[in-house]
């Protein structure tokens, strides 16, 4: 446990010791604020439903920037050899890195909690719905991070990691657009794989076991694959 936390702290420090973290934070929050204003201004409703949808969409762009360096940078600079020759379990390395990215991501979400307080000041939003919405956005980000981590563990180039993560996240996010070309079992698969169909429920305040299973199992699946990937040095 101590080692996981040591790696997490190192990851967080590496975010904040480079300008990347601040650029991501400032740009993300600025863009979110803009959309928040536009949505509230046009809907005139005390609900964050549409704000959550926009946030989910934008995380497709943001998360690969957070995760591309996690493993790729370590491999390119040779520090992976250091990590893997210390008496640290591969699971601890993967979890430490995952937590590092997840905490940074949670910070972004925490900064957007002001939206709730703003609409509460001017209206009477449903508190439970908003909380569930935040849970949905957070779960989706947590899944995107797990995918980004896995892809970063497969390559030693940050650019390759970023491009592949974008491709996978775009496919997951937009897979509903392809549903008209599929039938039967394929249609069910596409519908299940699409993050959009799961995120929508959370945005309107609905927690279902199927959606929770979808997010938690894909996070677990990606983390296990990441562990296998670094264990077998699949990037070589």
């Amino acid at each position, binding site marked *: 446990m101590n080692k996981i936390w040591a790696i997490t702290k190192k990851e967080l420090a590496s975010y904040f010791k*480079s300008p990347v973290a601040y650029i991501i934070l400032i740009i993300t929050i600025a863009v979110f604020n803009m959309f928040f204003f536009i949505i509230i201004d046009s809907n005139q409703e005390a609900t964050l439903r549409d704000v959550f949808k926009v946030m989910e969409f934008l995380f497709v762009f943001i998360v690969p920037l957070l995760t591309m360096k996690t493993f790729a940078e370590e491999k390119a600079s040779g520090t*992976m050899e*250091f990590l893997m020759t210390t008496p640290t379990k591969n699971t601890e390395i993967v979890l430490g890195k995952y937590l590092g990215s997840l905490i940074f991501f949670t910070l972004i979400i925490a900064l957007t909690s002001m939206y709730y307080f703003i609409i509460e000041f001017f209206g009477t939003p449903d508190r439970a719905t908003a909380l569930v919405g935040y849970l949905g956005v957070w779960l989706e980000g947590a899944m995107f991070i797990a995918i980004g981590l896995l892809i970063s563990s497969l390559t030693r180039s940050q650019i390759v990691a970023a491009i592949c993560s974008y491709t996978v996240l775009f496919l997951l996010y937009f897979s509903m657009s392809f549903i008209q070309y599929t039938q039967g079992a394929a249609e069910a698969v596409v519908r299940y794989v699409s993050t959009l169909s799961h995120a929508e429920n959370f945005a309107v305040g609905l927690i279902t076991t199927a959606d929770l299973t979808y997010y938690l199992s894909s996070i677990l699946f990606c983390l296990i694959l990441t562990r296998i990937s670094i264990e077998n040095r699949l990037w070589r």
Partner: protein
Amino acid sequence: MIRTERLTKYFGSTQALKSVSFEIQKGEIVGFLGRNGAGKTTLMRVLTSYLPASSGTVMIDGIDVLKHSLAVRQKIGYLPENPPLYPNMTVRDYIRFAAQLKDVPAKRICAQVDKVLNECYLRNVARKPISTLSKGYQQRVGIAQAIVNDPQILILDEPTNGLDPVQIQRIRELIKNLEEERTVIISTHILSEIEQIAQRVLIIKDGEIVADDTLNNLLCDDQGWRQSLEEVFLRLNQ
């Protein structure tokens, strides 16, 4: 302390190690000599459990590296060819991070970090980010992380690569000063370095051990004449 038996390693179809067998006793300082690409780094990576061997066994202190790699890694301090450093971290933070990962008890971490900072003459740069240090200092930070948990075995891959003569001298002194009772393996292609530090030499050529003897025996030819290590090395590598 270290025993390998018929160690082979394939990368695709190229064979990097060909049936390498040797034994190193506790407290020995052994030099791995060989040209670039001879297989020194691969052999070290196999010893540290970073790379699994294709066949053969490595026993460290009686423990099989493949089966109990975590236990083995606790006994080994390893400096890879390029010191594995995080440029944004300060020297002290990095050594502390290494100590945490290497199972140094939480109470002893501070004392241990101070100790290796002193041993490696890093006191005055402890608060500086690693990226601002010169190559010599970075190399010493690399050594500091390798010895932070007082490992019984120290494996150093070309520790003096790219340093100026004064820095090389300092690193040599540092290695010599490291506590006794410690087994040290050093790889290099700088022959004079081996002559000054090592007691025993393994010469590796194309993944095979072509000579394994004490330095004194190696430097005497068949008629008992003294020859230089350079002559021995060139002869074996022809």
